[in-house]
């Protein structure tokens, strides 16, 4: 073979391959650019996918931060089965008995779910913990498979349930902080647009759009889980002591800032099982239940007359020996008294003396002071379901209203409003907005919300507040109605309340609301506490039922928070103290 032949052969081969390439190229170009748009779209549609990237809901923690998480998202599994396959393998009973054993379900219930020969899918149980799901998977039961799921979990179950609230099955906060802070907690889901191969595996190189999700922000509460635990424990023991009581609730508020340190309500419910709970148990009575406050309301009238300078604590008034007729209607004291000073009138909780003070004040001023103290209006706590109470406008007052309203009849309040009144007296006359959320921190560490103390009103002068504090301390001294509310080592200022429950046509003789509200230490107040017990039997007095609960709570909380007793010896000039971190609780 000579050179010419070789060259010819090479050229022909090259041309041949070039023709093949041109042919293939033309076909490709034809397919890509030709008139087969539907065909191309169909293929593209099958290969492309778009999905939202779910993000974790933010945690809720107490004032200690992420060390004390109260609500978090948990990865769990749904246990599912393919009944058609199980029936075909004649393994219904075996599988049902195994699953029932692991999932703590009745065997017949599981068997009914599995014994459906035509069905390809059946969910046996939702939200099974990962550990248990792993055990089920290890059994390799035929036709049984697991599906990933996310669920909101509350590690301490019913603890702080009315404040935390819960998330419904659609992932929306439906009560408490979960509802109020939903926009912060939910985060923002991400987005992924990509393509898959024939085996439906993602082609990473074909990722078109990837927007990472932003996880939900963490919400830090003002509540302290140790303080809350003390409160819940005491409420439970109080209800054990008075088993016929319909409920009990308690709030602890920090007087200087309005921070809520604890809020508990009974009956309670398991947050992980909210679906089977009655609405009655879900009600946060501390902010959502209104009651006639009884004698605890007297402090408002006393503060008003002292602030107006109409009387002094030493002014003497007649208590009419226990019964006084005003506009033809009798008003009684629980114990008959002759003449009493204003100070003793509060200590002995005289209805008649309070009514006379109210008449000295006049309707307009009484109404104004009560409104300024927050009676009859929502205080704006950052929780859903706050009630405003019932406080009629002046135009609807009857002739005897000015003698009944100051003793807590014909007016209905929430425990939050009542503790607010006493916190105002403790706080030199400033009414603070109560709040339960301290801080919201985004997943990248940015603080997106930080609660600052907010003054709602200045109701009375600081001198009047100081006088009221001294008068309220006398209530817990010997001879006062609230002596069972004392706390060892601290001066307590407070007031008992025993209110008959309103029934159609008058007031019940058997059903009462017992309450005690106060603050401590009286000379340098830090905490205001209210305890309310609904329909206790057989005792029903605030001094007998609620004051001991107040005392137990205040004693333990004072120790827990390191509240300094005024008489304690303080060692100064400790060099190491300056180097320590500030107490995280305050």
């Amino acid at each position: 073979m000579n050179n010419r032949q070789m060259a010819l052969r090479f050229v022909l081969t090259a041309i041949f391959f070039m023709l093949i390439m041109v042919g293939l190229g033309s076909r490709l170009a034809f397919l890509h650019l030709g008139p087969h748009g539907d065909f191309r779209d169909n293929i593209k549609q099958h290969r492309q996918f778009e999905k939202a990237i779910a993000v974790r809901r933010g945690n809720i923690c107490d004032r200690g931060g992420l060390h004390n998480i109260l609500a978090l998202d948990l990865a769990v599994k749904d246990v599912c089965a393919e009944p058609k396959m199980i029936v075909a393998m004649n393994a219904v009973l075996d599988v049902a008995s195994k699953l029932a054993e692991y999932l703590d379900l009745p065997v017949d219930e599981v068997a009914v779910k599995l014994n459906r020969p035509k069905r390809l899918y059946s969910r046996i149980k939702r939200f099974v913990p990962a550990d248990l799901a792993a055990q089920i998977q290890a059994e390799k039961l035929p036709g049984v498979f697991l599906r990933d799921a996310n669920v909101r979990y509350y590690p301490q179950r019913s603890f702080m349930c009315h404040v935390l609230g819960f998330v419904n099955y659609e992932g929306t906060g439906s009560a408490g902080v979960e509802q109020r802070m939903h926009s912060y907690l939910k985060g923002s889901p991400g987005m992924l647009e990509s393509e898959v191969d024939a085996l439906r595996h993602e082609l990473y190189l074909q990722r078109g759009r990837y927007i990472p999700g932003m996880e939900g922000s963490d919400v830090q509460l003002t509540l302290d889980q140790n303080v809350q635990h003390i409160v819940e424990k005491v409420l439970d023991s109080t209800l054990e002591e008075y088993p016929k009581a319909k409920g009990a609730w308690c709030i602890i508020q920090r007087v200087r800032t309005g921070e809520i340190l604890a809020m508990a309500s009974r009956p309670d419910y398991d947050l992980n099982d909210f679906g089977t709970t009655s609405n009655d148990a879900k009600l946060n009575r501390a902010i959502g239940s209104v009651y006639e406050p009884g004698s605890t309301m007297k402090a408002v009238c006393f503060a008003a007359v002292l602030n107006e300078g109409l009387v002094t604590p030493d002014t003497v008034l007649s208590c009419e020996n226990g019964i006084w007729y005003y506009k033809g209607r009798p008003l009684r004291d629980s114990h008959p008294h002759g003449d009493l000073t204003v100070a003793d009138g509060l200590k002995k909780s005289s209805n008649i003396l309070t009514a006379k003070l109210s008449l000295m004040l006049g309707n307009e001023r009484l109404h104004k002071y009560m409104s300024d103290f927050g009676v009859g209006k929502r205080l704006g706590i950052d929780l859903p379901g706050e009630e405003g109470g019932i406080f009629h406008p002046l135009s609807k007052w009857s002739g005897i209203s000015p003698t009944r309203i100051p003793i807590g009849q014909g007016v209905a309040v929430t425990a939050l409003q009542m503790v607010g009144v006493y916190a105002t007296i403790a706080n030199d006359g400033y009414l603070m907005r109560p709040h339960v959320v301290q801080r919201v921190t985004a997943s990248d560490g940015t603080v997106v919300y930080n609660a600052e103390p907010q003054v709602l009103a200045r109701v009375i002068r600081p001198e009047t507040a100081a006088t009221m504090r001294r008068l309220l301390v006398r209530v817990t001294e010997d001879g006062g109605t609230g002596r069972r509310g004392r706390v060892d080592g601290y001066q307590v200022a407070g007031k008992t309340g025993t209110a008959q429950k309103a029934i159609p046509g008058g007031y019940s003789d058997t059903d009462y609301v017992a309450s005690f509200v106060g603050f401590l230490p009286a000379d340098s107040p830090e905490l205001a506490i209210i305890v309310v017990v609904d329909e206790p039997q057989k005792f029903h007095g605030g001094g007998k039922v609620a004051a001991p609960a107040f005392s137990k709570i205040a004693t333990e909380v004072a120790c827990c928070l390191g509240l300094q007793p005024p008489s304690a010896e303080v060692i100064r000039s400790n060099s190491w103290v300056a180097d320590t971190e500030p107490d995280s609780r305050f």
Partner: protein
Amino acid sequence: MAQRKKRRNRKRRVDGFIFPGPFAGILVFVSISALTYLWQCSRCEALGREIKTLEKQQVELTKKYLNEEYKWMRLKSPKSIEESLARCGISMTWPRRDQVTWLADARIRDDQGAQSPSDGAMRLAAVRRMPRHE
């Protein structure tokens, strides 16, 4: 100067086809480019797979972490601790007043009114002795 005439060497006769040099160069270049492209492509694929694996791993680890955190939170809740102490027969109470020494916070100067109600500062407490076990 007369130009030297280039004469053909008649004795040196070579049989066969000589592959054209430039064409060979182009072929080599194309081959190397193609191989480089293939290598890069497979490397990207491998990295993609690795990223996806790590993504999965991260999700799994996050789930595991949350599960462990959940267990830990349940374990260290005040109620659980009380129950554990009760199981072990330990009863703890708060320290008595005479067991507590109160230390003034050195950051609050006396002239700022450390004792006044408006400072709003809780005092630091130090327990002189261990809490009484009853």
